[in-house]
Every structure is written in structure tokens, then in C-alpha cells.
């Protein structure tokens, strides 16, 4: 599974993308965020306030309780500020 990071999440993690293979108990987007946060200090910093982290599964906005099974690409990013 490919994980993408944007804006300050990218800066805090220190990379724009990585490939991960989470264990079976990681079922939802929120589970994955918690699992990633436990990897190291950089990830912990990126995910320190889950309330301001949004996610997209295969390029569609999802809620934290969305299941990640079968997903090829998951992106984490702050609230959008385009327009």
C-alpha cells in the first residue's frame, strides 16, 4: 500500500510517499494513522493531532472509520486551502 503525504504532513514525515504493509489488525484509516504514528518520532509529530489530518483512499475523501482493505493509495493531508 502506497502512502502519500502533503503539505506539513509531508514536511513532518520527511518524505512525500512511502510503501507500507500494515498488519491485519489495521482495518481503518484511523488505525493506519495510529500505526504510522508509532513508527518513529517524525511520524508521531505528523499525526500528533488526528483531528486536523484528512485522508483520501484512491483519490477520494474518506472519514477516519473508512476501511482500507483493497486500497492501493492512501493520502494524508491537512484541511485543504485551495481556491
Amino acid at each position, binding site marked *: 500500500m502506497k502512502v502519500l503525504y*502533503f*503539505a506539513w504532513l509531508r514536511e513532518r514525515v520527511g518524505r512525500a510517499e512511502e510503501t507500507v504493509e500494515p498488519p491485519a489488525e489495521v482495518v481503518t484509516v484511523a488505525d493506519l494513522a495510529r500505526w504510522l504514528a508509532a513508527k518513529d518520532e517524525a511520524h508521531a509529530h505528523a499525526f500528533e493531532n488526528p483531528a486536523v489530518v484528512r485522508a483520501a483512499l484512491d*483519490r477520494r475523501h474518506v472519514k477516519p472509520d473508512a476501511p482500507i482493505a483493497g486500497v492501493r493509495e492512501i493520502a494524508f493531508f491537512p484541511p485543504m486551502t*485551495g*481556491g
Partner: protein
Amino acid sequence: MFEVRVQSAVFDASAEAARLSDARTDVGALVTFTGLCRADPDAAGAPLTALVLEHYPGMAEEEMARHLDTARERWPLTGAVIVHRHGRILPGEPIVLVVTASAHREAAFAAAAFLMDWLKTNAPFWKKEERGAAGGWVAAKASDDAAAARWTAD
């Protein structure tokens, strides 16, 4: 003609608008919205020197196209174009363009406002400010969430 585009180059709003109305006699209303980069100083008085827009390639275009489809379902549009820039943008330069065309002005106005409100809160773009040596990521505004929410409240 319906189109969405993400590009780093400056766009020509009038050329985009012309494509929706030239050589047609069924367009009664053409609304063009251009969002521009302001130099407004921050609380400490430092003026903005540039905006750097990061986006999610692929998803940005797809999300813009989905918003455009929603607008077409809600209003009788004869055409619409959305162009959003990414990369480094200087004060005074345009950032985003929404053009809507319809037989009637209400539809053109409403669809343009709707598209802008949704772009602000749902299109995967993030602005980082440069203010001399300072700067930082722009925080999302509650007022933008409220503006977007009004389209689902009724």
C-alpha cells in the same frame, strides 16, 4: 464545453470565458470568477512575498471534475471551466479561475459560487506563505467550511 485543468502557468481568464460564449446564441449569462494572490501583511506587519501551492496530482483534477458534475446536475449550464494553478504565485497573480455559462444569470452565478466554495474546502490544494524569511502553511478557515456547507443545507 466543460473542462477542468491544473497548471503552473498563468491563465487567460478572458480567453477561457470566450470559449464558452463565442459563436453561440444560447448563452445569456457568463460569470467569471478569478481568485488572486494578495500581498496582505500578517499580524506582525510582514507582507506576503509569494504563495506556494502544493496539490495532489490526479486527485486534484478528479475532485474538480466531480464538483463540476455536481454543478451540472444542479444548474442548467451550457458550459464551465475551472483552472487552478500550482507552484509559486506572486502577489497580484491569479490563482484560480471559474467560468460558468448558462441561459440565465441565476444559474451562472449560483454555480460559480458553489464551485468556488467547494474548491476552497475540498480540492486537494495547500497554500504555503512566504513572508520574507518567515511564512508557513495557511490554516483552513471555518468560514470556508460554512460557505461550502450552505450548499448542502437546503
